């Protein structure tokens, strides 16, 4: 009897599960058991080795590479898009975090708008300071966040990424001479106070640049 036809049902199941072990979706217990059997089976090792070659080929597939030409094409189409502004649906689930963090957006609609307004406000102010005089395109209806006058000693509401420890956050804020007033609340937000001696716009910009803040907004 050949080696191929002698494969037992259990071995066949192992072969079927190999790709799921590789992509990390196999339950932990099953994964550990399978890894153990791979160690003892030359046949499984060879199949797993071959799967690695398949994975390598798919990972470096030129089709999956986004080129400058692709970006230009989609930007041209997006520029022609006319659509009434709407806000996306949001659940209360914390599952939104990874996507919004990845794409630099925000988990809660109100925060999203407020955060955007804050960022645009900083940008608009910087443009003003630099004397460029360029106003944002009128084709971008979202640019409704005109720069607010700089108010000293205001409270800010910040939401750090959930990967940032309280200690790290405290250190970060201390460097900006900013004190935590309260927090975190249920949404992970902190109230912080910018000292009167500091320029709030610059503090907000610096905090934004740290890359660890999901949102920064003024408290009305």
């Amino acid at each position, binding site marked *: 009897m050949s080696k*191929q*036809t002698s*494969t037992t049902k259990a071995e*066949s199941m192992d*072969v*079927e599960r190999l*790709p*799921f072990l*590789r*992509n*990390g*979706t196999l339950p932990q217990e099953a994964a550990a058991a399978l890894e153990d059997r791979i160690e003892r089976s030359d*046949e499984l090792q*060879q*199949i797993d*080795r*071959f799967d690695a*070659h*398949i994975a*390598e*080929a*798919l*990972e*470096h*597939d030129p*089709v*999956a590479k*986004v080129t400058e030409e*692709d*970006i230009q*094409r*989609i*930007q041209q*189409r*997006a520029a022609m*898009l006319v*659509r009434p*502004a*709407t*806000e*996306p*649906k*949001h*659940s209360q*689930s914390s*599952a*939104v975090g990874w*996507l*919004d963090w990845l*794409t*630099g*957006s*925000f988990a809660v*609609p109100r925060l*999203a*708008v407020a955060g*955007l307004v804050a960022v645009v406000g900083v940008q608009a102010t910087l443009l003003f300071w630099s004397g460029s005089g360029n106003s944002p395109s009128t084709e*971008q*209806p*979202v640019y409704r966040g005109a720069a607010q006058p700089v108010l000293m000693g205001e409270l800010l509401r910040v939401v750090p990424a959930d990967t940032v420890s309280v200690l790290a956050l405290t250190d970060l804020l201390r460097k900006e001479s900013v004190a935590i007033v309260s927090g975190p609340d249920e949404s992970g937000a902190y109230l912080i106070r910018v000292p009167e001696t500091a320029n709030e716009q610059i503090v907000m910009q610096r905090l934004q640049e740290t890359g660890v803040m999901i949102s920064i907004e003024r408290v009305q």
Partner: protein
Amino acid sequence: MLAQLGAGRNDALTPLYQHYGGRVRQYAFSRLGNLEDANEVTDDTFMFIAQAPERFDYSGKFLTFLIGITKNKCLDMHRRRERHQKLSDAVSAATVTVEAATNDLLDALEAEERSSMMRDCIAKLPPSQKEALLLVINFGYAMQEIADAQDCPQGTVKSRLAHARQKVTECVKRKLEGGTDE
């Protein structure tokens, strides 16, 4: 970015495209087998997102949501071009044996040459098998997620993956032996 799109910031589409565009096109290409069609479907997918970002309800993975749209766009394209692909999948799982010598020969090749050879063989797979392979290996889908995406039982997913691996193995062996892979 979705919030920004929802607020009319069309430029927010660019970083989304940069991050996910490649995988979406790779998936579309696996279903359509034509780069031009895959490009069109990819762009249409992102334009759909730009027009209706609120469709994503944050209850699942964004990539899964994207792939669902891409799949529908691929089906639309099939319909438009009146292509009817008959997908055949044996119910029983294929058995496969990969010889160490095959892996050794593959390892001896330059990475680029090896990947190119593997991709040539993957490209020859039936669309459903290619799709299953891509979803499991590149997109990290679990078994049930693939079954949902392909509207089939888990057993069929296993079968498709096993057949895919078997066919790629045979194709690669023929190539390594210097024969034709047709």
